[in-house]
């Protein structure tokens, strides 16, 4: 799965983004009249924000071929920003994981001047979403939180970080957690573990009780 921001242009005839229904993607929230600010680029508007169960999509209201999308798995952080010194309008501030931290974004920004709107967007590390009515910010923040939780990290084999611990990714049976000797542990269990004896006694007890009846 590609990290970072990408171009999104698949729209239905009524202007909604075409989602991956077959894989269970559903539209969670639509917010009209939202402008978008990518990195240090100028604000683009007007547009409509679509939040699906998988991704955040912004589509231009003017240019039907213009749109951006970013998967929730690429959104490292989101927040409500209200300080006019940081940005003139209250907005949802996001940081985007691009998958390539080595690239120098400023250099990329300079090259961008001569290229079209879609070039270099995969390197964008910050995105601001500015609703014309700032009273929607808290709602948007909560929708972002909800959707982020719907998109945990995909398992990456040995690289899977311990931070991704969920109920599902406990160790498989037969796989040890480190390099300790599983056979040894099982042996210990046979020799020292009193629990099995207790269980037997319980059984005797209940057998006795049954026989009295």
């Amino acid at each position, binding site marked *: 799965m590609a990290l970072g921001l990408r171009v999104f242009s698949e729209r239905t005839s009524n202007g909604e983004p075409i989602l991956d229904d077959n894989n269970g993607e559903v539209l969670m929230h639509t917010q009209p009249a939202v402008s978008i600010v990518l990195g240090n680029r100028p604000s683009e508007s007007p547009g409509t924000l679509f939040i699906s169960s998988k991704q955040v999509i912004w589509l231009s209201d003017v240019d039907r071929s213009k749109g951006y999308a970013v998967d929730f*798995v690429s*959104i*490292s*952080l*989101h*927040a*409500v*920003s*209200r*300080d006019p*010194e*940081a*940005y003139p309008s209250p907005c949802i*501030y996001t*940081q985007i*994981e691009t998958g390539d*931290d080595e690239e120098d974004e400023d250099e990329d920004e300079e090259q961008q001047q001569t290229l079209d709107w879609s070039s270099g967007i995969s390197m964008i590390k*910050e995105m601001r979403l500015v609703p014309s009515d700032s009273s929607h910010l808290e709602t948007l*923040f909560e929708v*972002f*939180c909800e959707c*982020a*939780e719907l998109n*945990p*990290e995909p398992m990456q084999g040995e690289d899977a*970080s*311990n*931070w*991704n*611990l*969920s*109920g599902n990714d*406990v*160790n498989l049976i037969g796989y040890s*957690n*480190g390099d300790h000797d599983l056979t040894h542990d099982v042996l210990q269990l046979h020799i020292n573990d009193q629990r099995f004896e207790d269980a037997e006694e319980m059984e005797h007890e209940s057998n006795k009780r049954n026989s009295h009846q």
Partner: protein
Amino acid sequence: MLFFSYFKEIVGREVVVELKNDLAIRGTLRSVDQYLNIKLENTRVVDQDKYPHMLSVRNCFIRGSVVRYVQLPPDGVDVELLHDATRREARGG
């Protein structure tokens, strides 16, 4: 689930969350979920000179997978308890 259970116990305490991109955010832990996604309130960026644009953010949601460290309140750490819990977790118990 050890860290999840532990972090739930320190909700309301002040922590510093350090991200893999070196950004460190101090704030009150508001909630944590099973993926260790973290919500912070009353946030302050630790290195404000380096990240001036983050000054404005009062509360934020941080994706669990981008967290490198969480600095805990010293009196919120029961070393013995964590030690035991870690052992139990390692045994799969």
